[in-house]
């Protein structure tokens, strides 16, 4: 009876895979053992049958067409493409989020900052305006009508600056500034911050400030600002007033161009990421 090891030796012997010593030892046994010889022949016959097994005909050609070949082409660019896709997707997310943040911030921030800054700016302007007023005949008297007729805007504004709030005054403002009502309204808000000196000059400054904060009345705010700055070079005014008024100009219109730019870049990166990703996906079977 042959062991598994005997069969293994016979099998390897047929294939010429025995070491010289093993081969010699087996051949010595083969000379003496008929059963071993029989099994050796059986193994050879089996191998002969298997070797003669005809190849099967492929049911179709497995040649690659151009499209398959393109897909199967070695993708040395796979990793860089994957990295690009992932990074651009991440960058796109960050940019779009930043854009949204800046955009919403741009809508809220100016109002908030105007309210926060109002006391300081109003005080500053108040001091300046008071300096102006103290050095000019234009004071609490209603002399705006004597001001240059060529500057109706200025007169209106100076009027407001130089007089206590009155219905008449408000009306006049309303005449000159179509959006005076909202201005007046926001005035009162800012006035609280301008306290304790709730004088008309502070009032004016505040009106300019709050006008700047409200987008719909920006035009009017600008008009006020222009009116004031044109008023300052008046010969009757003292030199300190020649300096530009710290007025609505520092609080510009909410600038949406940066968020928009970030949004566009973000969306472009997102599209690039998706495109590269999809291309990779279709190529990677």
């Amino acid at each position, binding site marked *: 009876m042959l062991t*598994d090891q005997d*069969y*293994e030796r*016979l*099998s*390897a012997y047929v*294939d010429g*895979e025995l070491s010289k010593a093993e081969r010699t030892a087996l051949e010595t046994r083969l000379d003496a053992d008929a059963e071993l010889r*029989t099994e050796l*022949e*059986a*193994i*050879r*016959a*089996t*191998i*002969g*049958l*298997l*070797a003669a*097994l*005809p*190849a*099967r*005909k*492929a*049911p*179709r*050609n*497995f*040649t*690659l*067409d*151009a499209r*398959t*070949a393109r*897909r*199967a*082409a*070695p*993708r040395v660019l796979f990793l860089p493409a994957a990295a690009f896709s992932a990074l651009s997707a991440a960058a796109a997310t960050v940019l779009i989020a930043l854009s949204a943040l800046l955009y919403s911030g741009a809508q809220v921030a100016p109002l908030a900052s105007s309210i926060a800054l109002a006391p300081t700016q109003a005080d500053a302007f108040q001091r300046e305006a008071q300096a102006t007023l103290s050095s000019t005949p234009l004071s609490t008297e209603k002399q705006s009508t004597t001001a240059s007729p060529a500057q109706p805007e200025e007169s209106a504004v100076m009027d407001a600056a130089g007089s206590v709030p009155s219905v008449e005054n408000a009306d006049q403002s309303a005449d000159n500034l179509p959006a005076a009502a909202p201005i007046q309204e926001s005035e009162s808000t800012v006035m609280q911050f301008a306290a304790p000196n709730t004088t008309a000059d502070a009032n004016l400054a505040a009106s300019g400030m709050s006008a700047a904060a409200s987008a719909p009345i920006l035009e009017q705010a600008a008009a006020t600002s222009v009116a004031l700055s044109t008023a300052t070079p008046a010969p009757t005014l003292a030199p300190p007033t020649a300096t530009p008024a710290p007025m609505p100009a520092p609080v510009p219109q909410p600038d949406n161009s940066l968020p928009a730019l970030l949004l566009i870049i973000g969306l472009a990166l997102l599209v690039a990421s998706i495109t590269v990703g999809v291309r990779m996906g279709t190529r990677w*079977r």
Partner: protein
Amino acid sequence: MASSLPNEQTFITAAKRGDVDAFNRLVLHYQDGVYSLAYRIMGDEASAADAAQEAFILAYRRLETYQDGSFKAWLLRIATNACYDELRRRKRRPATAFEDLPGAEADDGPPLPSDEISPEQAVQQAELRRAIEGCIRGLQTDQRTVLLLSDVEELSYQEIAAITGVNLGTVKSRLSRARLGVRGCLEAFRELLPSGFRQSSNQ
């Protein structure tokens, strides 16, 4: 499987540069062999065709990794792995049991045209082929693959060890057991066997 294609290295070099036509010359030369191996490992035509096609696509993709040595052995390695991948997939989806797949008893198609044999001989050859393939299919996958690579494809132990990822000793023992298994199985088809096999088996 057919011996190597004349000017094989020329086609390989061209294919490496992206010449699909050159690669397809290699495909046409080796496709019957690759398909045969796949069929005998997988056990059915559809799976074998899928595995063979996958093998050639993978071969084209990985052509850079072929350096030198036997291109046929390199190709069979890819084909064997493609079959194993498919078998693993099938194991994960046991809806179609391996034994239930169309096997030797199914229609194998006409035998390959052969010169100077009578219709009777052709039928007998086809039956013998079916018998042998049926016996091979009865082996465990590991033994089956080693047997096919060694005795059908005539690769060396070294090449088989590289393809199957086992050491030479394992190749040797698996092959021995596979040969014994096929031989025992073929006893049932004694009447189909050539006289040489009958004689040795009868003793």
